[in-house]
């Protein structure tokens, strides 16, 4: 079982990202689950989304999760939420920030000694898609770190999932995914 927790703000696309990732993984024959904690969250409120991936049908519906990966797609959540909650010793963090990994860890001591990777998904999204929607770049970074799929295979699938959007936006998302794949450290 592979488990992922997303830290996001409502409106940044974590739910869409989690569902998109689940959709891509499902095409390879694995079983998936994607869900979120909404509460009565309004746009901008901190929220979490989740992925589970397994070879067998996923029957566990508990919301509690000890994630293998933590994705943080809004830079400030590293300070205002506990992104390390219920983590395991080997949990891998992929965090959106304009800082280097060393600077980030220095600014948030809770990340000390953890496996932390950084990428500026916000900047990448702004420069490619034109809006601060950091969900698809995070998935590009995840493909790099996890080596789950070949990036071209992943992008082809994401094109299908995003197909209802205008072609210009789809193309921009592909650029964003590739840039995050290349830039994550």
């Amino acid at each position, binding site marked *: 079982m592979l488990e992922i927790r997303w830290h996001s703000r409502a409106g940044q696309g974590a739910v869409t990202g*989690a*569902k998109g990732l*689940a*959709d891509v993984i*499902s095409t390879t024959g694995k*079983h*998936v*689950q*994607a*869900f*979120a904690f*909404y*509460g*009565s969250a309004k746009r901008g409120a901190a929220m979490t989304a989740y992925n589970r991936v397994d070879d067998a049908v*996923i*029957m*566990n*519906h*508990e*919301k*509690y999760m000890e994630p293998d990966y933590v994705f943080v797609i809004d830079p400030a959540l590293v300070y205002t939420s506990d992104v390390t909650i219920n983590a395991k010793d080997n949990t891998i963090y992929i965090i959106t920030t304009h800082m280097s990994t060393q600077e980030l860890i220095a600014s948030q001591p809770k990340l000390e000694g953890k496996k932390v990777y950084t990428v500026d998904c916000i900047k990448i999204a702004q420069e490619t898609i034109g809006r601060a929607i950091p969900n698809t770049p995070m998935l590009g970074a995840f493909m790099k770190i996890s080596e789950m799929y070949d990036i071209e295979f992943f992008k082809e699938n994401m094109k299908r999932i995003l197909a209802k959007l205008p072609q210009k936006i789809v193309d921009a998302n592909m650029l964003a995914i590739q840039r995050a794949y290349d830039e994550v450290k």
Partner: protein
Amino acid sequence: MAFDKMELRDIEVWDGNFAAAQALRQCQVDVVSAYPITPSTPIVEGYAKFKSDNYVEGEYVMVESEHAAMSGCIGAAAAGGRVATATSSQGLALMAETLYQASGMRLPIVLNIVNRALAAPLNVNGDHSDMYMVRDSGWIQFDAFCPQEAYDLNFIAFKVSEDHAVRTPAIVNQDGFMTSHTAQGVHTMDDDTAFSFVGEFKPMNDMLDFEHPVTHGVQTEEDWHFEHKARQHNDMMTIVPGKIDAAFEEFAKLTGRKYNQIEQYDMDDADVAVVCMGTSVETAREVAREMREKGIKAGVIGIRVFRPFPFMAIAEALKDVKAVAALDRSAPGGTPGALFNEIAGSLFNSDSKMLLSGYIYGLGGRDLTKKHLVDLYTELQANADAGKVLTQQQQFIGVRGPKLAYL
């Protein structure tokens, strides 16, 4: 055909709401009369989108309240069409009056309830308060434990509800958010196969058949009311269960997915068992398997058909089990939980020496964790070993503060 077919992949990653909306499309529902409410909104929104994109030939009626939504469904069903809607929580509460009209008038309607807590305090998350509130309303009630079942049970609900020997409306329940907003793989049917299962709607006593005038919505006082209600109950007790079984059988032939009025998992040799509904059934199945690795013979029963209640099937399934927990996801308001009472009733006049304890859990969407279930099975095993219930008969799972236990 005046509408377009939709190409689906064999497995689509859908949440429970979208799965239900796709089922309404594939059944080619004639009328959806709806007033959207969280977390059920995407079901009727989905139907409306399919209709505006020409994937459905039907009518979407926007109304001013849930009371009006079900009233619209009643009118459309009486006129003679395939009718559905969806609601949750407060919406269902406002709809309650008209639910009794629909069942009393013997109108086939499918209502998707995306289960959500009832205020106060206001809460949009999933529990079974709304499902329980309308349990005596004369509607058939199915319960889905995951998005796949939210899809499948809609077809089965139309099939049973519209049968001329049944003519009783049906509810398809799914857990708010835990199913409705959780995306999982759903095995789909293609449009033709799906529609072939429900078939063309066959009207009966329809008001638009001017050659054969009928009266709907009559008044009966002391002279006839009781006979009508007795007949309604009689059909629920004697006709509906067989029709549900037949629909389950036919659906299994079509899809390979076999449903049962109660779903039994690891029950053949179970010493201890949990009986519950919704997503909790699946989480409990996973924990039961893990308990077996630790030497506890654990099983799970999921209530697939909540109304008509599978009284005899429950009695049969539990007769040799030593200790059973009834899990109710609804505040009982001064009595044991509904499942506790119904299970107790099913076994009271039997030789079973089963030890029954009741648990209230998960109100307002509170998480039911695997840890909770491990503790629960451990407690049941202790009861089984001692030959008596060691705790009070009603306890609460997962609530903060001092331990609550009664009875």
